[in-house]
């Protein structure tokens, strides 16, 4: 009896330790990031850092303004979602509701494969094909916002497809059957009943995709052009927060190095804020659904 209790307690302890380890990792990352990045503000005012687009860290009189990179991250992620969300939704609906078993299996494994491809391969694909295509469509050098958004859209597609399909399948059968029994067509049922019922899952998928897009470094580095200027249009070059960190990391020293950690803080806060906002929105929309059901 006693021995059994000992094992119970032991197992619980080990699991708890593992859980604490991941919490510790988050805390350590946060602390070190801030410890290395915050000292920059002794020399550069916060407002200049966030709201200036002058990035000249190695000049005689250095300037550290990351507005261009914040804008770059926001614009490229937004545009990528604008492409990936409708496409991913369409594929998810097709897989969950319309396709036959065999086609569905083929498409699903293709999408899963897409999720497993390393980002540097996406970058190579971007250089070889997407940049050429975007040069023909948007003009410019082919390295810029258009190419980066297309590559990111393809990269976020699997997440959105998977989550959409899974949440559509999780919608209770009765809803679908009820709708069809009331005389709605299949299309009406999907658009008016099933997708709204799966809404929260779909939003969660979009957020996951957005997280991947903002954090993505290698692929956008290879096709984004990387000029430290404000985004100017589909043919204009961009540099995102992640690109800025990786570009200068190898040689940067002193304040310049610190400023890269500070860029990391901006990215960190950015993703945190995004997650919190979306989670809050999700909670509200769920509460709304329940309220409607009760009402």
């Amino acid at each position: 009896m006693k021995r059994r209790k000992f094992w119970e307690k032991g197992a619980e302890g080990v699991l708890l330790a593992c859980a604490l380890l991941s919490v510790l990792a988050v805390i350590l990352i946060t602390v070190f990031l801030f410890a290395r990045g915050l000292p920059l503000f002794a020399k550069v005012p916060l407002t200049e850092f966030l709201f200036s687009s002058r990035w000249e860290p190695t000049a005689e009189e250095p300037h550290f303004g990351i507005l261009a990179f914040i804008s770059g991250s926001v614009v490229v992620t937004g545009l990528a979602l604008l492409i990936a969300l409708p496409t991913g939704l369409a594929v998810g609906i097709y897989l969950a509701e319309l396709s036959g078993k065999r086609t569905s299996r083929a498409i699903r494994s293709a999408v899963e494969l897409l999720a497993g491809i390393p980002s540097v391969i996406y970058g190579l694909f971007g250089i070889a094909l997407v940049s050429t295509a975007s040069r023909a469509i948007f003009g410019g050098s082919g390295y810029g916002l258009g190419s980066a958004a297309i590559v990111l859209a393809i990269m976020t597609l699997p997440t959105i497809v998977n989550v959409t399909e899974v949440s559509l399948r999780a919608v209770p059968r009765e809803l679908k059957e009820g709708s069809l029994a009331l005389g709605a067509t299949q299309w009406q049922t999907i658009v008016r009943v099933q997708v709204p019922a799966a809404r929260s899952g779909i939003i969660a998928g979009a957020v996951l995709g957005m997280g991947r897009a903002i954090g993505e470094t290698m692929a956008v580095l290879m096709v984004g052009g990387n000029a430290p200027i404000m985004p100017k249009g589909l043919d204009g070059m961009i540099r995102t927060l992640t690109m800025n960190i990786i570009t200068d990391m190898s040689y940067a020293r002193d304040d310049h190095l610190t400023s890269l950690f500070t860029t990391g803080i901006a990215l960190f806060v950015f993703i945190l804020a995004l997650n919190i906002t979306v989670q809050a929105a999700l909670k509200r929309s769920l509460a709304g659904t329940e309220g409607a059901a009760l009402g």
Partner: protein
Amino acid sequence: MKKTALIALSLILAASAFAQLKGTYTFSGSTTVAPIAYAAIEQFQKENPGVKISYEGVGSGAGLKALAADQVTLAGSSAELSADQLKTLVPTVIALDGLTPVVNKNVKLSNISMENLAAIFTGKITNWKDVGGQDMKIVVVNRDESSGTYIAFWEIVCQKAYGKAIAYTKDAIVAKENGEVAAKVASTPGSIGYVGMAFAEEVIKAGGRSLLVNGVKDTIPNVVNKTWPISRKLYLVTKSAPVAGSVEKAFIDFVLSAKGQAIVKSADFIPVPKN
């Protein structure tokens, strides 16, 4: 008795001739020389465990000043020494640094002047037709701000007309490595970039072209005879000729040895040609 003393004396002499180098040294100077210096110091310290050297990349000018003021005993320089400096300081060439402008194969141009090159990279000229090519927008490919090549190209090509403070056009693709410049230039119509001379071949292999500058081709002999304009020599400088048996002399000899020159090559510079 006499014989023993003689043997003892010769033993002492032999021992001192092979005396292990030791001590702590600080060298300073050019940031361009720094990658060579760091790698060479690492290797040199492995072979001479008693020696500890640090190299501070403070710039050629500051390094030479520190050397003249006896604050350091060896300085790296990517700048030519003035006649005044040559009165007291002794430079030894350890590497050659040559850069080559490369363009996409669709650019209809084979030769460019230094002035036009500078104007393109500062954004003053944005169309190939202004430098003798076709009517096409120029896509500038530049290096990242913290690379030595980025600074070297400014100093050699642009500084004369546009001043010491670096002011490249910001509307340029930024590539992190020579290899990335090669890839971007080879794949982007209308593009121009610059790479370490050793890398020009990569661009040509990938389908790009190198440009003549002022009618001169980018060959190693042309760097050596100073006709290739985008080149310079890298020096290690000592106060008076390096003394045999000193750490400074041993270090310079090491950098000039086959091992040292391999380091030079792997840092993307051109080894000193043997005559």
